[in-house]
């Protein structure tokens, strides 16, 4: 995997996975009511969370490869890679947090409420 591809995957992967998991759960909500079973919702949420964490880990590895520096405006590939890697770490973790926040109602509400 090229370095730039890894950086972009780590950065944009988290939001993309969150959107997919969220749309899938929204589409599955009527099904969960019909079959009185929320496991499909939980399953998609867990898969989404794992993939978001995977993107964060990918960005983390890129950040380590780029020298583990804080973000800066310096010139060159390393500072720019650091910048994108840090964006990727925080974005992916943030998206994982939204996946968890959206999973909370699944535990609080009954399938047909």
């Amino acid at each position, binding site marked *: 995997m090229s370095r*730039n591809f890894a950086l972009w995957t780590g950065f944009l992967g988290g*939001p993309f996975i*969150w*959107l997919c998991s*969220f749309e899938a*759960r*929204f589409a599955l*909500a*009527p099904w*969960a*009511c019909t079959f009185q079973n*929320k496991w499909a*919702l939980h399953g998609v949420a867990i898969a989404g969370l794992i993939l978001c964490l995977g993107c964060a880990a990918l960005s983390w590895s890129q950040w380590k490869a780029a020298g583990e520096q804080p*973000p*800066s*405006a310096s*010139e*060159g*590939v390393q*500072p*720019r890679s*650091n*910048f*994108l890697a*840090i*964006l990727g770490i*925080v*974005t992916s973790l*943030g*998206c994982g*947090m*939204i996946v968890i*926040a*959206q999973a*909370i*109602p*699944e535990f*609080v*509400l009954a*399938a*047909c*409420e």
Partner: protein
Amino acid sequence: MTATQDIYPQTPTLDQDIQQLAQSWRHPRGIFGWLSYTTHQAIGMRYIVTAFVMLLAGGAEALMMRTQLMHSNNGYLGPERYNQIFTTHGTTMMFLFAVPMMEGMAIYLIPLMCGTRNVAFPRLNAFGYWMYLFGVLFLYWGVFTNAAPDVGWFAYPPLSGPQYTPGKSTDYWAQMITFTEVSALCVAAELIATILKMRAPGMSLNRMPLYVWSILTQSWMIIFAMPAIVLASSYLLSDRTVATQFVNPAEGGDPLLYQHIFWFFGHPEVYIIFIPALGFVSSIVVAHAQRELIGYTAMVLAQIANGFIAFGLWVHHMFATDLPQIGEAYFTASSMMIAITSGVQIFCWIATLWSGKPRLTTALLFVYGFIAIFVLGGLTGVILASVPLDLQVHDTFFVVAHFHYVLIGGAVFPLFGAFYHWFPKFTGRMMNERLGRINFWVLFAGFNLTFFPMHILGLKGMPRRIYTYSPEMGWDQLNLLATIGAYIIAFGGLLFLVNLFWSRKFGAIAGNNPWNADSLEWAAASPAPNYNFEYLPAVTSRYPLWVPAEERTFVTGTRTDRREVLVTTLMDAQPHHRYILPRPSIWPLIAAICVTVGFAGSVFNGWYITWGTIISALALIGWFWPKRPLDPAHD
């Protein structure tokens, strides 16, 4: 930046350069020439002026509504006329003012901020403007021929369907959407290409100004959101004109499908308007606090996160429909999450202002006003994200208050700040600061007097979209206050216009960089010439104009005898190749007229789609017909 200095072995003197640049980039003469302009300053300013006229039109409609609601049982407007006025107001403000205004500002500013000479596709830029203008004329032609739409700016079926709204008014509305969205997609495509491939050498992603990040985010949002509304309006139009069955329940269609698709566009639309305004605020804060922005990375992150999360909120406009509660709860969660990313930006601006030496200019006053109003609007947004609370105030004036706090506070106040900030670059003259401060306080007072009482009216149960009410409801006093506020806002708008025209003629000469600002647009002359920069700048810092003058670098060796720009790499903005932009052309206007024949005619007869497609294809052949000699310097 020595790598950038020998791209082309040509070293004319500066005077020769400027003469050649002026010649290469000069506008064609005459009315025919005027219609052929393709420079980003000309097209951007046309967008800004047209959108400003739309702001005045939408404002006049708002005044008519507020006059009608001033007291109970008022007979100033009848119910049909009131429906037309609030629909045209919402449509004008959302589709014909807010988005095009933000696009116009971006078209003007982005090439300057990126250190290049024009947008990537100048003729597409011109085509987008003409499509927008024809969309404006199309809708208002309906308005002035007593066929104004009257189904709300969202035109929900079944109310907007052929059974309940016969005639052509809704067809005009639906097809106007297509015009403006084609225009928006043109602008988004050219701005993305400009930002990603035409930045000044050295302007790597970690050095891009936040305004440029905001426009990149907004443009991608347009690419993903606008097709949804074109689809929704096409469903509606085809149900109405050729009796398809997409969203018309009388024919077995699904009106909820329309709502989903409309709001999949409609909520991101709010952020499409609002995110560029965040970019304005960042530029103004940095320039007027005279210090680097605190939390640049966090700000970029928050803007992009806003852009993504905006696509996960649409159902919070549909909480009153019969959707599964678990499904609604997902949208509550994401609606609350977006408050975090918005809050991050507010704290970064406050920290920057707190630790800087802010000059209390009119532009910065508008930023302070934005922070106060937008935070209040955000708080009511969090309230509306909760399903039970939303159901209590659904379709009341509480919602009207909320979205005006968010949209006027979040977008229009920063926009006025941006006018005061960039007016010197647009015209070469300063706006009057004393009149500007009065302008701000009048607008701020008028705004809060108009919209704050609407929260209380909503909590008291006053519904939206009613043309009058009975005195027993007890809503008279608050409505009167809101109407007085609306007239104060109008007076504030008048003050702005007076300041604009006075300053245009008599304002102090600005010079290149009157604010000692940091970004590249201030390196160009004021007003910027057609070619923007005598030498294309190269960048060694995130704040390139705060680098000592003797350390600044620029690109030499690009040809000045043709419209040549430098294409750079996406990530690090390293010089890649030279690119020749096309000369001015009348073909974008001809193509827009041909497309308009197809779009407008199809409202009356479906065959116009066929004829419009054929003549549009012919226009495109003319547009792309190669000229001899092939070097655009000579065509």
